[in-house]
């Protein structure tokens, strides 16, 4: 035993701020999801802004951060429970559940992109293409009788990964802006190919069969406590669990030697190579695992939305996904969660503004960036085992 813990306060940091945050966020998202009237929506947006400002200036934000890093595991679990609780309270509300699930799946996609450019520094402007690849795979395999739907999800990921394989050679060779062009080109190519080609439904798109688990079709509405729930309830719960699982893995990846290698490759390839890190292996691993996640998210999204067409996976959709990562803060998974909510829910909640909504959305995002240039929740320094004594 050594005397490390000199400046670590012996009193453990409280879990209360974390729990309160979860409660607040849960109630808030519930309210936001069901808000319909203009004044409700505007009020809630104003409330969020006020809370953020308050959190920044009173140091409340730091308290939450500290609390979270001291009790990460239970609080993460708490967050999952929070999400599930919101899902249950909304169980018969189709539309809020649809939006919630969409948010979750975009969040999932942002996790994939985070591995790619948050950790490894490989920009990917074809996120929507890989997401779409997953969805199209789900459409194709979903129609094959004997193909187990759960595997379809995996297949979606694998196909996206395989498509990524096509790009591996140029991607590994290029860096920075040059790599950006490779993915941009691929994204445009992917969408145009789907559009001009009739095999996969052409511009009209394809139906996607619903998700099925053994003995359970997700298109059926489950009955909860005697009440009929929305069929989106299935997807919401499933997505929440999927996100939790993949989140855990992404976190583990970040907090492992693999994540360290990714950071090293991003920050200084030459030095990394001089210390035995394989640049190629690291980049390929990051690119493919990112695409795997994008593909899985896309597959489930396709099954839920049940109809896909090339116009849903355009360059601007890719940019939307990139926005989530940047807005949240590069390499910061929780930031991605918040940003996904903003990017998915805000335009929707702004429907009341009709044709003005994108203008307003764009202006809001610009304002956020001007005040938080590093994103909403900038990435924290790596801590392999948060809360562990060594870590402090």
């Amino acid at each position, binding site marked *: 035993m050594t005397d490390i813990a000199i400046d670590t306060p012996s009193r453990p940091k409280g879990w209360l701020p974390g729990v309160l945050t979860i409660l607040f966020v849960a109630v808030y998202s519930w309210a936001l999801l069901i808000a319909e009237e203009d004044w409700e929506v505007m009020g809630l947006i104003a409330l969020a802004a006020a809370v953020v400002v308050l959190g920044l200036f009173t140091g409340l934000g730091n308290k939450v951060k500290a609390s979270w890093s001291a009790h990460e595991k239970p609080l993460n679990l708490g967050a999952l429970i929070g999400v599930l609780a919101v899902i249950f309270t909304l169980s018969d509300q189709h539309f809020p559940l649809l939006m919630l699930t969409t948010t979750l799946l975009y969040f999932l996609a942002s996790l994939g992109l985070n591995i790619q450019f948050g950790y490894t520094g490989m*920009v990917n402007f074809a996120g929507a293409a890989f997401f779409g690849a997953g969805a199209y795979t789900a459409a194709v395999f979903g129609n094959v009788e004997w193909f187990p739907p759960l595997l379809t999800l995996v297949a979606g990921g694998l196909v996206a990964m395989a498509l990524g394989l096509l*790009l591996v050679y*140029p991607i590994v*060779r290029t860096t920075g802006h040059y790599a950006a*062009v490779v993915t941009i080109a691929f994204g445009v190519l992917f969408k145009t190919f789907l559009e*001009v080609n009739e095999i996969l439904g052409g511009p009209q798109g394809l139906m996607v069969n619903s998700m099925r688990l053994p003995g359970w079709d997700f298109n059926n509405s489950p009955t909860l406590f005697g009440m009929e729930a929305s069929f989106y309830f299935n997807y919401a719960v499933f997505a929440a669990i999927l996100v939790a699982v993949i989140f855990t893995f992404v976190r583990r990846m970040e907090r492992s030697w693999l994540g360290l290698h990714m950071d090293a490759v991003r920050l200084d390839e030459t030095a990394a190579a001089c210390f035995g890190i394989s640049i190629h292996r690291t980049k390929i691993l990051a690119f493919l695992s990112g695409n795997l996640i994008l593909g899985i998210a896309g597959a489930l999204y396709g099954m839920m939305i049940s109809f896909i067409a090339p116009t849903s996976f355009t360059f601007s959709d890719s940019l939307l996904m990139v926005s989530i990562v940047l807005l949240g803060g590069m390499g910061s998974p929780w930031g991605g969660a918040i940003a996904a909510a903003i990017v998915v829910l805000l335009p929707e909640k702004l429907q009341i503004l009709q044709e003005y909504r994108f203008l307003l959305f764009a202006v809001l995002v610009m304002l956020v960036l001007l005040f938080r240039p590093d994103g909403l929740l900038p990435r924290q320094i790596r801590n392999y085992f948060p809360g562990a004594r060594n870590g402090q």
Partner: protein
Amino acid sequence: MDIGLLAQYLANGIMLGTMYALVAVGFTLFFGVLDVIKFSHGDVLMLGTFAGFTVWLGLEAAGISNPWVQLVLILIASMAFTAAAGAAIAKYLVLPLKKAPPLNTLLITLMLGTAIREAVRLFYPNGSNPKAFPSLLPDASVDLGGFLLRADSVILVVAGLGLITGLNLMLNRTRLGLAIRAVAQDEETARTMGINYMVVVLATFGIGSGVAAFAGIMNGLYYNEINFGMGLLLGLIGFSAAIVGGLGNLYGAILGGFIFAGLQVVGSALLPFASAYKDVFAFAVVIAIMAWKPTGLIPERTSDRV
């Protein structure tokens, strides 16, 4: 394929290439000075073109109808307007984010692009519909055996290439050019040399955006049609062209622009009954070029060393 057709393709390609190159130049300049991707470039171009169009409407209303006078006034007005817009973007959106990850600049300019596009669509009178841009250049043409060589195309190409060459000279031969390149590499040391950092950055963004307006007007004069979405694709292609050509110097932008134009023309000429695939083809070739030359066709001289 007969000569006339071939010549026609060539002429088309050159025209298109010049236009792409003019857009690409802007991207190269912005990378050059601040190492940022300014995704709103295409939309700024569109804004400049609409500004020019508005001026034209005003001139018509004021009864000034000499096409050359109109042309000069339109160009001056739209380039000045866009240059000011570019400088404002640099000052209020790009510079404040200098310390943030460079991709965040991309996001903010991306959003700005959306905002500009939507604003024109919503607030320009009848902005969601295409507008008929006047043809102010002489519409004389020579028929060279099935191939129509048009005076306006020639003027546009010459003007465009001349502008790029002039810019390149400016960048490589003048004090301002030297300052631009210095600022790009090390802001603080550049200031220590007595360079007025802010002025140089704003000037670069102004120039790059002004060139975009030029490209936009050229686009309008050539196609006689402008619309609020015109910048989107032009921006995307300009960006790709800049990169494919290489960020080494402005000639990379020309090369990239012409390659892109060539790919599209060849794509639709060689794949006549599958011309829908021409973009697939063009972008596939772009990927291949990047795999072959990972830093573009005219790469920067590298200065990395260990």
